[in-house]
């Protein structure tokens, strides 16, 4: 299981981040002060570190500068939204910089991007009788290969990664088509219909009124 270190001094936000990464199927380890986090980073290996900048004893920037164990990728999560801080954070070697307040799905999407970049995500997913291989870009249903367009494939993977999570059209657009995509949300609906038809997911890939779609767990 992918292990993520959460360094955050505010207990509620730490809990929030932990719950959020749990949705993505990751294990979160919470640490509420800088010095302790530094020790952990130095001696343990994490797949990803979510680092707050403003910590009471040792700032996130400081930890970033001092750490010698640089295997784990770092995402800064901070209330500081000035460009200079962002630049500084990224210059220090962080993979990304997320400004508070953030949405749960945004955080998850960014985590996935980073994990994919450092190749720590799984390549194979299975959902009921559907199995997906990200590397080969293939999708099999009951052992038979089903042809999916690249976007349909990505949408499917995104839903499988976030089972039982209501995903808004905007979020899906941002995750699959990119944040700067200015298309119609209708595009999503068409892709969903295609997926439902091709993989017989009418029952599982449900529409949630006024919000978006959700892929229900396969067990039910």
């Amino acid at each position, binding site marked *: 299981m992918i292990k993520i270190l959460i360094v955050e*001094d*505010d*207990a*509620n*936000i730490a*809990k*929030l*981040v932990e*719950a*959020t990464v749990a*949705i993505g199927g990751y294990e979160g380890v919470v640490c509420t002060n800088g010095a302790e986090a530094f020790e952990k980073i130095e001696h343990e290996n994490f797949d990803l570190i979510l680092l707050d900048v*403003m910590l*009471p004893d040792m700032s996130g920037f400081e930890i970033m500068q001092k750490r010698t164990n640089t295997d784990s990728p770092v995402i800064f999560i901070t*209330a*500081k*939204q000035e460009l200079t801080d962002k630049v500084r954070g990224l210059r220090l070697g962080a993979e990304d910089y997320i400004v*508070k*307040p*953030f*949405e*749960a*799905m945004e955080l998850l999407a960014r985590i996935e991007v980073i994990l994919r970049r450092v190749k720590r995500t799984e390549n194979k997913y299975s959902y009921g009788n559907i199995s997906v291989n990200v590397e080969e870009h293939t999708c099999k249903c009951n052992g038979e290969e089903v042809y999916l367009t690249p976007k349909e494939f990505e949408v499917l993977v995104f839903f499988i990664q976030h089972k*039982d*999570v*209501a*995903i808004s059209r905007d979020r899906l657009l941002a995750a699959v088509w990119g944040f700067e995509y200015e298309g119609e949300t209708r595009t999503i609906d068409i892709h969903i219909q295609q997926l439902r038809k091709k993989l017989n997911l009418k029952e599982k890939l449900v529409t949630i009124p006024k*919000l978006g779609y*959700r892929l*229900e767990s396969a067990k039910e």
Partner: protein
Amino acid sequence: MKLWQKIFLYTLILVMLAVSMTSILLLKNSFSFALNQKKQSVYSEHEFLVTSFKSMMVTERLKENAIVLEEKTLKKFMEDTFGKNAEGNGILFCNTKNEQVYSNREIFVPTGLLEAVKETGKSYMQVDGYQLYMASAESMEGKTYYVVTENDISDVMEIHENMLWQIQVISMACAVLIALILLVVVKMLLHPLKKINEGTRSIAQGNYQERIPERGHDEFTELARNMNRMAESVETNVRALEHVAEDRKHFIDNLSHEMKTPLTSILGFSDLLQIQKDITEESRIEYAGIIKSEATRMRTLSGKLMELITVGETNLDWKEEDMQVLFGEIGVSLQVVTAKKGIALSCSSQKGSLWVDRELFKSLLYNLVDNAIKASRTGSRIQVEGRFGEGQFLVEVLDQGVGIPVEEIDKITQAFYMVDKARSRADGGAGLGLALCKEIVSLHQGTMKFESRQGEGTRVLISMKGGRRDA
């Protein structure tokens, strides 16, 4: 044109003018003196010549035995007398018809000379070139003759010309010398101006800490001193502005952080509640609880913030309040809170009155006691006491709480400063209470001091001017 060029040029022109004028005047004086002397000698010579000729003529008349000498005889006599004297002074006789009777050499009588003599009958002198002509009317042998002598004055003229030339040379030399000296002097005198100029430019470019050297006691030093004074006040003001800007930025930074922290929780947990399908009842209650408590925190923050912002701007309601009554009221309302935490509170004041804004004064004491409560353990005491000193009213808030670390005391009145962030947040503090207190005290023209020992307690001492104690 630059100042030094102007000063240099004008001074040079004036000096040269003065020098030339003085020398020309002197030269003119000495020349006219020399010429006058010459004229005198010419005059006496002329007189002598004429007189001696006249007496010689008398002798000749006697010798000729004539009553009157004819013009011809006279001419011959003249030739005899002056004929050989061609090298010395020239002499010329002419009659009233302007006919030359005799001249010992060719003489060009200057025009106007004879006419002047004819008109007035007096003798006249005139300079023409290097010659001085003197003409006089003399009656000889019953007729009027005009005698003109031509005298060489080339010596005087030559000296004059010589001196004129010398003066020109000397003037030129003087001009060059004066120009050089002036150049050096002007440059030297205006050197401080250059320094001042450089300094001012540097200050204008933003080097407000730069100062102009102040040497000597002249106007430039004064100017430099005033410039420095100006730079100093500019520097002070700029620093003050920078400080204010920095403070404001710091405040905004803190504010945004303080607002974003609860907002993140509120948005995040509500997001989780919305997007998750299966959520346990336990989590749902927990998330809702967090959302509620964070929202409460934001409400406290915005309330305190409004109080802090409006405290200096609203019209204060100044009244002379009875301190004993006011402290009694405050004590009663605070008792409710302290009793809940099991803390003993005493709140009293000496009898007397003070000009205060009632609501602000209450807010001040509430905030201080609120801090004391947060620092105190169950079973400890909080003491609030008001008393009148010399021309001032003193408020003392004493607790037996955790105290404040020495190095933090200076910072605790800063907005958003919290000694223990985690605990303060847990108590619902926004870090604005003491900033508000400081503002209220300063509106009452008072001072606030903190004395604290960690683990033993804190003493807040406020002193406000005025107050009247009732016996």
